[in-house]
């Protein structure tokens, strides 16, 4: 979606409550948001529910979106918070890493997420997995990841460093 179109749809959705305008935004961002949440949860149905919750929250709070930020960054931030809230709830009975691992091999979008990749992601802590996915898969720069995770850039770099080391170790050990 072109930037002027995006700004127009955001303004129409925020000021006039235009659902049609908002549907253009959902259509444009459903794929990256669902992909991001799917790789965080390794559960297609759950990621669909969390993505829907993300867009519902975006709809309700779109008036608080500031044009200085990118809409995609704002949306990823909501998605991360939705995931984090869910993960916190899930941790009362299970750690998320365990939950992530237990769900493997889950149904996957288009059935093409390899078990190896999902298992490799499961060895990472939540913040490491989030930072790695945003950086390597969603092509987000460190500054924006820091805004999404609401932490300093140095912390993001640490997550990325540890994530790289863990994944490199995992793959180099010939998948354990």
């Amino acid at each position, binding site marked *: 979606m072109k930037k002027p179109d995006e700004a127009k749809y955001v303004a129409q959705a925020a*000021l006039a409550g235009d659902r049609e305008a908002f549907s253009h935004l959902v259509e444009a961002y459903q794929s990256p948001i669902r992909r991001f949440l799917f790789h965080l949860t390794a559960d297609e149905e759950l990621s669909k529910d969390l993505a829907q919750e993300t867009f519902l929250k975006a*709809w*309700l709070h779109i008036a608080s979106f500031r044009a200085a930020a990118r809409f995609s960054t704002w949306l990823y931030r909501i998605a991360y918070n939705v995931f984090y809230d869910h993960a916190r709830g899930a941790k009362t009975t299970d750690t998320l890493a365990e939950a992530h691992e237990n769900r493997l091999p889950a149904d996957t979008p288009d059935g093409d997420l*390899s078990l190896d990749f999902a298992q490799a992601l499961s060895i990472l802590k939540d913040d490491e997995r989030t930072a790695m996915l945003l950086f390597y898969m969603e092509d987000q720069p460190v500054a924006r990841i820091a805004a999404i995770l609401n932490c300093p850039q140095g912390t993001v770099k640490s997550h990325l460093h540890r994530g790289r080391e863990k994944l*490199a170790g995992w793959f*180099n050990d010939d998948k354990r």
Partner: protein
Amino acid sequence: MNEKELRKIFTDHKKEVSDDGFTRRTVSALPERPALLPRWVTGLCVAAALASLWFVFTTAPVTEQLRLLVDSIARLKMPSTFSVAVYVGILTLLGAVGYSLVEAATD
């Protein structure tokens, strides 16, 4: 494993997720959104605007006050209370009417 190989693993697993009705279902599930401002704020603005305009109309012609306001701004002087009241009254009224129109369009 180097940076390039690591990036390739992620890139290889980066797939477009097909919509399959997700957008339609999500948009149809959107709740009614509360108004940007509570209605009492609109009411308060209208009351303030009407009070300002009443104050002005009962003391001096509005056109004269607007002329004085423009004149004092042009001369970088402090405008009179009357002309400020006209200005505030008109702006507030326009804001309240504009906001009500946006709200009506949303409803």
